């Protein structure tokens, strides 16, 4: 299971990196989403996988094997933050598209050229 998940993370990272390097803005945003999901899975995996055990102590208070709840809390936080950021990204690019009429990242040269 660990190995499978590791391979999946690798695939997600490479797909994300590929999409981020594209010139189209929409693909770029999808790339960002994929990268952030890959990172969330990475936290999940490196927190240690325990199968079929709860993250809570049962009523007897007996705990031997239980899933570590903190990676899940970390991921939840990261997902919520990622949610907000993706929406902001979409809104920003939509606004930019409206102003400039371009979907090409190579058109973003204006603020880099000296003495524009």
């Amino acid at each position, binding site marked *: 299971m660990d190995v499978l998940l590791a391979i999946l993370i690798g695939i997600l990272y490479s797909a994300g990196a590929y999409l981020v390097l594209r010139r189209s803005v929409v693909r770029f945003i999808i790339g960002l989403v994929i990268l952030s999901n890959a990172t969330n899975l990475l936290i999940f995996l490196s927190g240690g996988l325990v199968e079929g055990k709860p993250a809570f102590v049962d009523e007897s208070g007996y705990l031997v094997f239980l899933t570590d709840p903190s990676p899940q809390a970390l991921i939840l936080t990261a997902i919520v933050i990622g949610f907000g950021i993706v929406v902001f990204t979409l809104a920003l690019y*939509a606004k930019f598209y409206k102003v400039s009429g371009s979907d090409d990242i190579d058109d973003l040269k204006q603020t880099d050229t000296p003495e524009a």
Partner: protein
Amino acid sequence: MNSRILNIAQKYLKILFVVFGVLILLRGHNYPGGGFIGGLLASLAYVFQGLLKGADKQASKSVSNGLYLGLGLSLILLSVLPGFFMGNAMQGIWWDFSVGGWDLKVGSPFLFDVGVFCVVIGVSQLFFYSLSRY
């Protein structure tokens, strides 16, 4: 979108979404659930309405999302204050009631949850309406 079936169904679905969201919120103290997920469910009601009637109209009609945000943030702030003054900051402070044989436990974490619930509703409305303008 102009579908009569959806239009009528939406009236009931709206109530369902809100009630289910509140249930999840209340359940969240000891079981999976809570303010965030409950808020997302409840905000589906608004999203549905917006999809049907057009987001622009809906945005002008609905309660200002700024109000939800402000209300939620104020509740979150309120939930921190009792801990700040009565012990350790952000510590949960609990009050036990029993009303008609029901044991009720009300505490500052619940206030926090309700705050998150409101913020999530406000924010997802804001997201939905501002993105659907494009």
